[in-house]
């Protein structure tokens, strides 16, 4: 395939027997895409530093003992990569089964549910009653957004988005250890008392619906969230002169969510509180709730 950029060194490898050429610096995941192979990913995001934590993207690389996370391992010349072996299938299936056994995935994006089907993951493999989950009450501290960590798969994307990758606010981090690890502010303090500036950039990257705007949360809880009926309108944010692209998601003639395209060269999907939530409470202070 000849999609490599001119002037950048090319790397040749094979994926499932297909010869692939990628630019130096690209990953095995990139190579898989070029070979037309769809790879499941959960913690990988175009706009955040890979933390390679979910392990659903693992592949077999000849000569390597354990499987290798395709999202973060650089492609190397001569690598022989396999994505359809028994070991790969079993690990991907088990990762999905383990997540489904501990996390509420009901609001997760369609892709995740597609992979559960593809790998034949049995979401009820671990018996109920004897199986610890991360179930807990949602944190609703204001009228802008909700953190429901019973839906959190600990992909670290929100932490990266709040930290060095986008917001530089560092309001949230992973706390605790092992199965008790959780996204948290310091001492689990309320968000409106933390460093959070309500940019909502963490919401934009969350793949499971653990982080949502309050309006979306209420609609989803009521069973009234109907993405197939929603229309989306592009506009440019008028609060300041930066020129952020906004996508207004409208359901029943009401704005229910604002996003920015991940590939927009100004925002990379990120906004500030005014763009993300300004339509909701024009000029108002962030309200406290509960």
């Amino acid at each position: 395939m000849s999609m490599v950029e001119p002037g950048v060194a090319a790397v040749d490898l094979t994926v499932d027997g297909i010869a692939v050429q990628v630019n130096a610096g690209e990953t095995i995941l990139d190579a898989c895409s070029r070979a037309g192979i769809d790879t499941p990913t959960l913690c990988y995001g175009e706009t955040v530093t890979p933390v390679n934590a979910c392990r659903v993207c693992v592949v077999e690389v000849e000569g390597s003992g354990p499987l290798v996370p395709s999202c973060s391992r650089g492609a190397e010349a001569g690598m022989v990569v396999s994505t359809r072996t028994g070991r790969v299938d079993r690990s991907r299936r088990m990762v999905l089964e383990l997540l489904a056994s501990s996390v509420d995935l009901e609001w997760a994006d369609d892709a995740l549910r597609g992979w559960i089907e593809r790998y034949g993951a049995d979401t009820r493999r671990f018996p109920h009653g004897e199986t610890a989950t991360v179930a807990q009450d949602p944190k609703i501290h204001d009228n802008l957004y909700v953190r429901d960590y019973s839906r959190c798969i600990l992909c670290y994307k929100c932490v990266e988005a709040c930290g060095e990758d986008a917001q530089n606010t560092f309001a949230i981090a992973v706390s605790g250890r092992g199965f008790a690890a959780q996204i948290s502010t310091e001492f689990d303090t309320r968000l409106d008392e933390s460093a959070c500036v309500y940019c909502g950039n963490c919401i934009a990257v969350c793949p499971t619906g653990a982080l949502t705007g309050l309006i979306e949360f209420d609609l989803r809880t009521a069973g009234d969230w109907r993405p197939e009926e929603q229309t989306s309108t592009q506009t440019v944010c008028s609060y300041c002169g930066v020129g952020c692209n906004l996508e207004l998601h409208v359901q029943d003639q009401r704005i229910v969510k604002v996003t920015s395209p991940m590939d927009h060269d100004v925002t990379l999907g990120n906004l500030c509180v005014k763009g993300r939530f300004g339509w909701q409470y024009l000029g108002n202070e962030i309200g406290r709730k509960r």
Partner: protein
Amino acid sequence: MDLKIGPDEATDAERQAVDDLIGAHGGATIANGERLVLGGVRRAAERRHLLLPGLHALQRSRGFISAGGLNHLCESLGVPPADAYGVASFYDLFSVEEAPDTVVRVCDDIACRINGHDAIEAALGDAGLADTSRLDSPCLGLCDFGGAAVVQRVGTDLRGVRVVAGPAEPVIESHLPSGPRLLRRIVGSDVASLDAYLDAGGYRALRSAVELGADAVIDAVSAAGLRGRGGAAFPTGVKWRAVADQTGPTKHVIANADESEPGTFKDRVLMENDPFALVEALTVAGLATGSTNGWIYVRGEYPVAVDRLRAAIAEARAADLLGTDVLGAGIVFDIDLRVGAGAYICGEETALFNSIEGFRGEPRQKPPFPTTHGLFGQPTAINNVETLVNVLDIVTDGVEVYRELGTADSPGTRLFCLSGAVARPGLYEHPMGVTLRQVLGAAGGLVDRREMRATLLGGAAGVFVDATSLDVPLTFEDTRAAGITLGSGVVMAFDETHDLRDTAARIAEFFRHESCGQCVPCRVGTQRQHELLAHTFGSGSFDAELFDDLAAVMKDASICGLGHTAASAIGSAVRLGLLT
């Protein structure tokens, strides 16, 4: 980044504790230039590496880490409070909730639970600690005693309690034809002072190393066939050469003294009884690799080792054996001692880097490897304590003498940590290639001449073997061929009277508790493994297929060695039929 710090204020004592610590560290630089930098200048300015010592200072000052105390530390170091809280809540020895002034952590891990809590409780009563608050602890590295606890009390350093609850007083013995090697200064003598160490031949190795030069030292280590004693058996010479070949101005050598593998206590015995040996050996490593920065990372539950190493470093510095002109030979090398805070995972090399740097002890994906991207992203050679101490003999006595013991592929000697049902628990030095039968025999066999039912080799990350393995030569190559492991030198014996299902469940609990939580296969897998075992023993049904799938995903898809080995010992017990 603008820090937003909450309204909680530190007490005067907390403020003082933090300010004293930061003051004592000054600019945190040594003469030849900047050190302690992660990811460039900005991180250096943050002095984030002082976070872990700062958290220790807060914990000591008030018995827990308060919001006000953490705020002051964060302001002083420029670390966001949410991040610092994430670090504080990672470690067992830190409490982020108000806690009693005295907390006693009693080992309930696999060796000690054989003897029960009675002896240690009696000792705690005698020490006036009868009514203090208790917490269960994973292995405290005192398995040779058979009963152990550590005491955390406001205002003082952590203190250890050792009680002979096992079959006998621990022994320290070398069983070599030619007299002790790694234990040469320990068996029957006292080398806690620099003078005594020098009288016992101390610092001959460093002098020889200076004469030989860095290249020749690495060649000798390679020719001696030295392989890592921390578990992975990687050739030390290859590692040192890789770091020596890096041209960056700042390189590091680290002694990994986190020793938290259940059943392991060899490094504790070395550090407590022969602290200068580690200081000297690390200096040789620094010279060989061209590193000016040495670090010793000791687990927090080893207060005696911490004290003795701290004293040894100070004495060595005063005698120009560390500093800007070591041995008057113009060598720049110094050592910083860092103390862990209760996290087995911080013994994994890349987690250890993160821990020193002031981040959560989460392992990093490899590659890149430490030899190019180690501590603060700089070239780093990290070695186990026992590995490093081997270097002294290699350099002083030469490769030929070193190779007189052991086999061609596994030269030298090995420290074995004997515990459990052996008649004389303790630390034993044997030539590589000794058999398990001989190792158990040297320890007097089993208590009351009982039959060995199973022996755990290599700790929780190792494997159980039964009597069919008694004659396997304990070398790297023979154990690998037999599908077993020497790991960190653990030899823990069990007889017919022991309930190995209880042992297996405790091992599962160990991994569940120690998983850093970063990757799904291990975070959820170790949890499910523990549930599976606990549930199985209640109902008598064991879902072997589910266990195999769990074992496979942890081994195949986890980030680090903790997940890779979390089902190893339990799987071996299942295969040997020990859990029925």
